[in-house]
């Protein structure tokens, strides 16, 4: 598992993709930071993170698209699956590699609230809660991305699938609130961003944390099943 993890992290930084994604994210957070926190004279950094979190529906699919699709296309999958290392460990190794890149990206942005804390009061509890929520959002999104990557051997298709899934999740929350009734309950329940908004407003709910983690667990499990299933059916 560790060997896969190491290899995947390395290959992120062999190609420009990790640098571009990290750079893009930090840049956009910086722009929001300047416009709302510095020019707008607000000490609420949580809103900035909340506003930039939509970027994840683009960044995560791009980071995860190659994880499984590339191996299938290049034929390396054969070596991975015929090695004594189990499929579960391989998938988790890959998953953790993407998570690492995501965490790097997130940690860099901590610099903004730190700078702000020199000039004003920052609500530490709220920041921590927001970051926890943001990381959990990433945890769940990456699992969706890796699942999408296991569906196809074409990276472009993988990116589109995970983008569409994430976009739909992003949309169902607002749609749910308009719809009202049972539909609203159901739609907001499957909407990850709605859960995330609890964190940004400083509400730490254990059930939300479990919700995100089990969401990630489910999609990792589905990914493993997907690969197993393909071995059983076609080849």
């Amino acid at each position: 598992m560790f060997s896969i993890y190491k290899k995947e992290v390395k290959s992120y930084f062999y190609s420009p993709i990790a640098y571009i994604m990290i750079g893009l994210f930090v840049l956009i957070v910086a722009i929001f930071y300047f416009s709302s926190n510095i020019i707008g004279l607000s000490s609420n950094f949580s809103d900035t993170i909340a506003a930039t979190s939509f970027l994840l529906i683009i960044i995560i699919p791009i980071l995860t698209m190659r994880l499984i699709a590339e191996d299938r296309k290049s034929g390396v999958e054969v070596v991975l699956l015929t090695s004594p290392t189990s499929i579960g460990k391989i998938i988790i190794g890959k998953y953790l590699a993407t998570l690492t890149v995501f965490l790097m990206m997130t940690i860099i942005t901590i610099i903004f609230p730190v700078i702000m804390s020199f000039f004003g009061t920052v609500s530490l509890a709220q920041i921590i809660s927001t970051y926890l929520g943001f990381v959990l959002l990433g945890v769940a999104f990456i699992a969706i991305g890796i699942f999408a990557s296991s569906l196809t051997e074409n990276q472009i298709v993988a990116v589109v699938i995970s983008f569409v899934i994430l976009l739909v999740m992003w949309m169902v929350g607002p749609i749910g609130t308009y719809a009202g009734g049972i539909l609203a309950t159901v739609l907001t329940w499957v909407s990850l961003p709605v859960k995330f908004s609890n964190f940004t407003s400083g509400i730490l709910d254990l059930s939300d944390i479990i919700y995100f983690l089990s969401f990630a667990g489910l999609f990792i499990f589905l990914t493993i099943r997907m690969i197993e299933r393909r071995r059983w059916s076609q080849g």
Partner: protein
Amino acid sequence: MIEILNLTKKFGQIKAVDNISFTVNKGEVLGFLGPNGAGKTTTMNILTGFISSTEGTVKIDGFDIMDNPKEVKKRIGYMPEQPPLYMDMTVIEYLTFISELKLVDKKSRKKQIDDILKLVRISDIKKRLIKNLSKGYKQRVGFAQTLIGNPEVLILDEPTVGLDPKQIIEIRKLIKLLGQDHTIILSSHILPEVSAICDRVVIIDKGRIVAIDTPENLARGIGPSTSISMKIEGPRMDIEKIIKGIYGVKSIKVKSTGSKEINEFIAETIKDTDIRKPLFFELAKHNFPLLESSTLDASLEDVFLQLTTQEKGVK
């Protein structure tokens, strides 16, 4: 070492592999021969645990691939038709990665990789990126990959495909060398290759086994007759009459050799009758000198074509 029993694989309604059974003994090099689409790769994918079978069992060293995949996978090195390489890694990085993946003990890892690099002769390119290597070198890196973890069984899917003649010869040498202390299954549709390297040959067609034997036996055992070619000095008609008179001769063809006195006679005989001795004495009696004689065995090529184009299989 390898036991395959009633193996069947269906893709939808199509049976890619249809009820095949054979065993491979320890230390044997087995050739897996068949036209394209015969089910060679499918069988190999099942043996290595890459895909599952629909029915039947595969046992390697006594371990069933279904019940004990981890033990089986430890004992197998697999080289698929397309070498499974990470293009943006260097050779040494790639082999180290594979070594970790195959759970090779940390202490012996470096030494094992060094030995393999020497064996397949890629030590001098170990720091180069795989994507910059020539096809022959890529193939060798693929080979090196199968040897990591020191598996007892090597499964090679068309190992020489796409290489130039010199590289083919080198790869064959390597396979022969490895055959000394490994059990090898090797698929190919190149017949001389199989007869040059393999101890035994399995010919499959449309997912079914049509023959299992040594390359020599296959070549000998085919067809209802054998042929002998002879060069004999003397009048053509007389000699033809003499040959026809010998028991076992079915037909004669005559070719001129350029010299008026000497003709080449090709006699087709009933299988398992040796006409050489009686023919020699008969010719000597009539003072016709026999200058040259050779048996024309069917080549593996003939066997292969006959077995895979006929409806009926020959066992």
